[in-house]
């Protein structure tokens, strides 16, 4: 146990250093140019952070899920886009590790992630499904010599052009129903990406997520053995919501810290007289506390339920509601905190070039309610609430 705790602590110290020394320095440029945070990624690779969650027997560091979540928070405090790329990569890694079922192709693949620090992106959304990740149009299609292929129209692929490999949701076969999905992992050399759009968004600009038509040819062993619906409820959805909300909390925390620094600076100018903004800062702290409490409790609930045999509790309607609510609550609360911070800082928060600027924080967190649209999640919850008993 203590070895694991030490390992986590060392990992997190390294992540904090990357956040402070690298991510923070380039965050404004990454945002301004809407460019990929190459410096952060290269520092993460150097620290073997891309294989942090992979078990030691497959070449990774065996870092705990809690530490991965905390790493997202630390990176989020310094560069939202860097944190999002890190988080999305970890979502794919955690998903594969939890659903390997001893598949030898995937074990070998994880070893190559550890050795080469390969970056994995996901292709889950698809044109024509109305944002429903539980349905696919593209299918695993038989190709020559026993191989498989697919063609998928993706409205966004986060850091698609910068990823080494892609994890893609597909129908199991050309005649399968839309909900009969599997996950296929394809390597860079097996993929072609045809860009279908540009990337000039309001926030999270460094994630570089335009649309593509993705084509790939691959071996049948590259399909994860566990069907996607089980992978989705037990891992991909809760892990996504937990890691995203940690990084949104990180961004909101930095916005709060900047507001606090602003109030302290004003207080020093007139000693003995608390500035009027101090009161607003106190209101803001209670908003931030709510966000922190929701994020913490969801992480604890997930880790607890993951330790049970078969992870059955994660498959229940109650669990789906729990982790859907985390996403909705955190994605609405994070921009609220950032906007509150701007209210405290006033014009120096609104300007992009002061120590108290929070414009990037506000813009980055405004993406939160859109990545998997909150209204779609509400639609699912509305249906689940009809049958759930004790929520």
């Amino acid at each position, binding site marked *: 146990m203590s070895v694991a705790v030490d390992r986590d602590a060392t990992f997190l110290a390294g992540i904090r250093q990357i956040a402070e020394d690298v991510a923070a320095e380039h965050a404004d440029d990454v945002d301004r140019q809407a460019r990929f945070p190459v410096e952060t990624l290269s520092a993460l690779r150097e620290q073997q952070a891309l294989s942090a969650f992979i078990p030691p027997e497959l070449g990774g560091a065996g870092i705990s899920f809690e530490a991965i979540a905390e790493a997202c928070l630390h990176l989020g405090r310094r560069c939202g886009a860097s944190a999002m790329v890190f988080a999305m990569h970890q979502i794919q890694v955690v998903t594969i590790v939890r659903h390997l079922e001893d598949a030898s192709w995937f074990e070998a693949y994880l070893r190559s992630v550890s050795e080469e620090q390969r970056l994995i992106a996901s292709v889950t959304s698809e044109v024509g499904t109305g944002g429903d990740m*539980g*349905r696919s149009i593209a299918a695993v299609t038989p190709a020559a010599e026993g191989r498989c292929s697919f063609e998928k129209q993706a409205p966004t692929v986060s850091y698609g052009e910068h990823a080494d490999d892609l994890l893609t949701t597909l129908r*199991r076969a050309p005649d*399968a*129903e*839309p*909900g*009969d999905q599997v996950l296929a992992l394809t390597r860079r050399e097996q993929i072609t990406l045809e860009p279908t759009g540009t990337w000039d968004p309001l926030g999270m600009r460094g994630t570089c997520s335009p649309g593509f038509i993705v084509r790939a040819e691959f071996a049948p062993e590259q399909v994860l053995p566990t069907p996607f*619906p*089980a992978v989705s*409820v037990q891992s991909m959805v809760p892990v996504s919501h937990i890691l995203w909300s940690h990084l949104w909390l990180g961004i909101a925390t930095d916005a709060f810290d900047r507001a606090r620094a602003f109030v302290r600076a004003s207080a020093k100018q007139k000693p003995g007289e608390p500035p009027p903004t101090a009161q607003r800062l106190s209101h803001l702290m209670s908003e931030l506390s709510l966000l922190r409490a929701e994020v913490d409790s969801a992480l604890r609930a997930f880790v607890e339920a993951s330790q049970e045999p078969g992870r*059955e*509790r994660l*498959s*229940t*309607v*109650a669990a789906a509601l729990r982790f859907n609510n985390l996403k909705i609550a955190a994605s609405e609360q994070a921009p609220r905190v950032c906007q509150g911070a701007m209210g405290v800082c006033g014009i120096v928060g609104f300007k992009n070039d002061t120590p108290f600027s929070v414009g990037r924080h506000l813009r980055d967190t405004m993406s939160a309610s859109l990545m998997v649209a909150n209204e779609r999640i509400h639609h*699912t919850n509305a*249906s*689940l609430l*009809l*049958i*759930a*008993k*004790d929520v």
Partner: protein
Amino acid sequence: MIEEIRSIIRDHARLPVDVDTLADDTDLYQAGMTSHASVNVMLGLEDRFDIEFPDHMLKRSVFESIAAIAAALKDLQVSAAA
């Protein structure tokens, strides 16, 4: 009981195929039942059999086939009688 389950599936599961063509152990989700439709099946079962599925039974594996639903209903009726 199996026939009643089949009739609820016919009414609520919105399958692209006729339920009579499915075996008792056919995976209903693979046959095209969406998560949304499965909630309607659960509600239909609760109404028809006058039972309530507790939270721990409200998961995919319990509703994935006619046989699985029948087993779950038997479990519930047994525990109600005890």
